[in-house]
């Protein structure tokens, strides 16, 4: 079995988002970048499947050289080798085309990634890759088991779950609780340094969308405090003042 896991390199969830004064890009001063939390779930499940089936596991990232610490972390967690497509991942179609291009050369049985990146929250890449390869894609997948050539999955839907079965190959957007996040151990970290990382120029680069400027939401007004003894007054305020009831 051959598995590809695709990761993003994004600001940590605790980041206070700021943009440069002209609003043209993220102000990255003091921002810590990590593997996207959803990608981390996909990666963790991929490592488990590798152990279960003796699969080979490749990690892929579309990004500039700055993303290499995240790629090395994925190698430390158990990926065998890595591919970095050397480009800014600014448009979902562009990223999906890069992934599909690699997939066409390698015939993976499973392509796993997070349900969405936590910077642009597009949630599009898995679906576009599936379409470009002409194979099924599912998201958000919260449970994944492989039996022979069949993937048995649970997908989260509004208010519940949908259980699915489909033959490999597949592209999946993953989320919790598909696996527990893993922490690399010392041996993993040491061996990651010597694992192969291929850097490739983007193929057929084209963008369908372009973000022109960024902005922050208007600051929130002050919170109106209601004494606990008069808690019942909340309902009246929500009705007459906030007009939400």
């Amino acid at each position, binding site marked *: 079995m051959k598995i590809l896991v695709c990761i993003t390199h994004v600001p940590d*969830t605790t*980041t206070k*988002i700021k*943009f440069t004064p002209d609003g043209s890009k993220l102000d990255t001063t003091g921002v810590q970048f990590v593997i996207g*939390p959803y990608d981390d779930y996909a990666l963790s499940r991929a490592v488990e499947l590798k152990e279960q089936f003796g699969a080979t596991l490749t990690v892929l990232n579309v990004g500039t050289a700055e993303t290499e610490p995240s790629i090395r972390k994925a190698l430390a967690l158990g990926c065998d080798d890595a591919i970095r497509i050397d480009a800014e991942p600014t448009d*979902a*179609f562009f990223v999906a085309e890069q992934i599909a291009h690699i997939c066409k050369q390698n015939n993976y049985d499973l392509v796993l990634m997070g349900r969405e990146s*936590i910077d*642009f*929250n*597009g949630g*599009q*890449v898995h*679906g*576009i*890759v*599936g*379409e470009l390869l002409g194979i*099924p*894609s*599912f*998201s*958000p997948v*919260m449970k994944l088991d492989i039996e022979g050539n069949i993937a048995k999955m649970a*997908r989260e839907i*509004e*208010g*519940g*779950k*949908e*259980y*699915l*079965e*489909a033959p490999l190959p597949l592209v999946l957007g993953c*989320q919790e*609780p598909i696996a527990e996040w893993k922490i690399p151990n010392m041996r993993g970290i040491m061996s990651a340094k010597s694992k192969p990382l291929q850097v490739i120029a983007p193929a057929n680069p084209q963008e*369908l*969308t*372009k*973000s*022109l*400027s*960024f*902005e922050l*939401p208007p600051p929130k*007004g002050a*919170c*109106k*405090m*209601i004494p*606990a003894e008069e*808690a*019942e007054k*909340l*309902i*009246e305020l929500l*009705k007459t003042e*906030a007009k*939400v*009831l």
Partner: protein
Amino acid sequence: MSVLIFVETAEGKAKPSSLEAVGYGAKVAEMLGTTATALVLGDAQELEKLGNYGASKVLHVADSRLNTGIIQAYSNVIAQAVEKENASVLVLAKSSLGDAVAARVAGRLKAGLASNVVELPNLSNGFVVKRSIYTGKAFANTMISTEKKILAIKKNIYSVTPSSNTASVEAFAPTLNDSDFVAKITNTEKATGTISLPEANIVVSGGRGLKGPENWGIVEELAKVLGAATGCSKPVSDLHWRPHHEHVGQTGVKVSPNLYIAIGISGAIQHLAGVNSSKCIVVINSDPEAPFFQAADYGIVGDAFQVVPKIIEAAKKM
């Protein structure tokens, strides 16, 4: 040219978020000087009523294989409808099905897709949409440069007042292949009789401050009197006090209701990420220093077990 809106149904009826999408799509059509067509798949009723929300025509694919949302089959049908209607814009409401389908249609048609759209497009210089990014912490103004465009809109961003107009209903028979049905849905588990969290106008959420699942009665009762959905913080679903689909936040459901009431939730940045587009936020917490108060419109410092019953009583008298 036209604007096509994919309408999702539940038990044969259009979901509220899809009605909002129809209203939004009709407005975009008006801005472009064209008309809006709604697309409905599987068994459905009262289709002409989509005209109330601005659709002039409804395309209906009455194929019972489409009664459940098979992602590949839906994507194939929607892409064919876009071609048939020569639609320049496809609009849909974000959902677990809508998101998965929009991406595939974008791949198939090579159409630029913007998700989490929060406003009508700006057409003064190209086609630019404002979308929510960094999980609600910021916005991007994104230009879509392809001829065909797809917009997945966030809930509660456009208000429509229904009219008495009706839409004409036309049967549509797209080509479906066996390969569209290779995935089998073997079972569906769905909470019944409760309000769906992403669709809800009011959400009452509980956190670890409620101490255990046996104490959820006050959350459920307040939700019931307000006609609200129930939600929770991540540790609460991790501890299995509540089902995973109620988990709100960065790694859970993102909600944008009119009213979000948080009880015993500290307001960690990852929780706020899922609720920061709510119109009004109420926080009930025993700790006056809880960070959630900074993101709230109304706050009550107190013990949830004393405060919430008082609110329930007042809501019952409303």
